[in-house]
């Protein structure tokens, strides 16, 4: 029995192990009484497999469960078309509930850019999401997420980081 089914909740589908780790470290900073509203799913092993898995499994599940939001966590691999390409796979009626985020190249680049460990980066991302600040999200490797981040803050923040 999943206690999330009848409450708004966020599922994160990571492309690979590095994205999974980032998502986990973010998840740790979700207040404990909201943690069950988030679930990091098993890695899809490739950005195109994220999209395929989304289409083959999660589209139907999201249509069944109106409370579900999904974050597709993919690497952009420096491609300007990646977001457009990914968005094209999302049915129009689900577009408001699906978010596509990722590092411009790959997560390891964040560590190489001296942003700290995945634990540090995940914590900073959670703080940015909670407080609405852009400190880490404005970084060169993350700033392309701005439009999705805006939507994410509007829809996901009230679920994971509700105001006190």
């Amino acid at each position, binding site marked *: 029995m999943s206690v999330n089914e009848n409450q708004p909740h966020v599922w994160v589908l990571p492309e690979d*192990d590095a994205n999974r780790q980032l998502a*986990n470290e973010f998840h*740790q900073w979700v207040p404990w009484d909201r943690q069950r509203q988030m*679930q*990091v799913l098993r*890695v899809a092993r490739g950005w195109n497999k994220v999209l395929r898995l989304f289409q083959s499994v999660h589209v139907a599940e999201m249509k069944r469960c109106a409370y579900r939001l999904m974050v597709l966590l993919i690497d952009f691999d420096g491609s300007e078309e990646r977001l457009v390409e990914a968005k094209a796979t999302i049915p129009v009626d689900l577009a408001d509930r699906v978010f596509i985020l990722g590092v411009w190249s790959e997560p390891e680049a964040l560590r190489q850019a001296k942003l700290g460990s*995945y*634990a540090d980066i995940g914590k900073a991302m959670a703080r940015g999401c909670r407080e609405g600040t852009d400190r880490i999200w404005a970084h060169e490797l993350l700033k392309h997420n701005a439009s999705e981040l805006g939507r994410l803050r509007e829809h996901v923040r009230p679920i994971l980081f509700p105001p006190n």
Partner: protein
Amino acid sequence: MPIAGKPSALLIGDNGSGKTTVGLALEILQRIARGTNRVGDLVKPKDFFLGRTDAPMRFEIDVELKTKIYGYSIAFEFPQGLQALGVKDLRVFEEKLTVDGKPVYTREKAQVHLARSGQEKEAKFLIDWHLAALPIIQEQSRSDPLFILKAWLARMLILRPIPSLISGDSEQETLQPSPQVTDFGAWFAGLLADQPSAYTKIDKYLKQVIPDLKDIKNPVVGRDSRSLVVQFSNQQGSVNMPFEDLSDGEKCFMLSALVLAANDAYGPLLCFWDEPDNYLALSEVGHFVMALRTAFQSGGQFIATSHNPEAISRFSDENTLVLHRKSHLEPTIVRPLGDLQVNGDLIDALVRGDVEP
């Protein structure tokens, strides 16, 4: 164990690699702090690796509490001369307690040197070689480093629960549960006696995991005994259930609730939980582990061992340690997962047996 500064850490490795032994080693330090001072009750000659009694068996821990580093170590020896005489117990070779590197006491064999601050003179006295000094030396106050470290070690939560043995009955109160947590009822009673507000945390956590939980009562059922009763309710009515009738997984939820509340109430604690994913539904494992990791972000340290892919997936390479030994004839080596070359998905690599230091 490179776990300093990490609020949570995961130990992974093959069967027999030494993960559970980490908990057993901590348990020896804990038993000393809880008052077991006879060496023969702590370690046995068989505990020497490959029977090598030519070098001492040493246990060491460094703990940061309120910005001070407390260091405790004890080494046991089993000289061949004693073995020839038919003696069966080990004895203390060295023992030491330090705070920020300065000794509180040191000991070599029977001789104990008690450092004193200010005007007091250093004290020396002899102690039976077969007794650990930590439980014997009298602390001066609750701010005495001896008291602080002993209390912390004694309250570590080293957990290897066996839910089928947890009944919920108790005849006393404790803040020091046993590894199998067969004294769950006593711990529940002790925690609420120490901090009645802890029930709020227990209740909040459990109601997320078990939505139809109403409350937990611990009524007196005999002259000196209590027995936990769990009440569930929904629109259809309510039902009371003796604690012992809960499922194994539900008992683990109860246990986790107490761990979270205990760390808040009388932490910061070290919680070593050997395979916390045991007995849980797959859909619960991730939430269960993540709740524990998050709870210890604000203080204390949570160490888990696991073979479960869902549990392992909730940690990062940075807080996962791989334990490995090539054979039973070689010692365990410990490496941060982040230092190893893992190709592709970690779980796949573990299934393939390709994660080796």
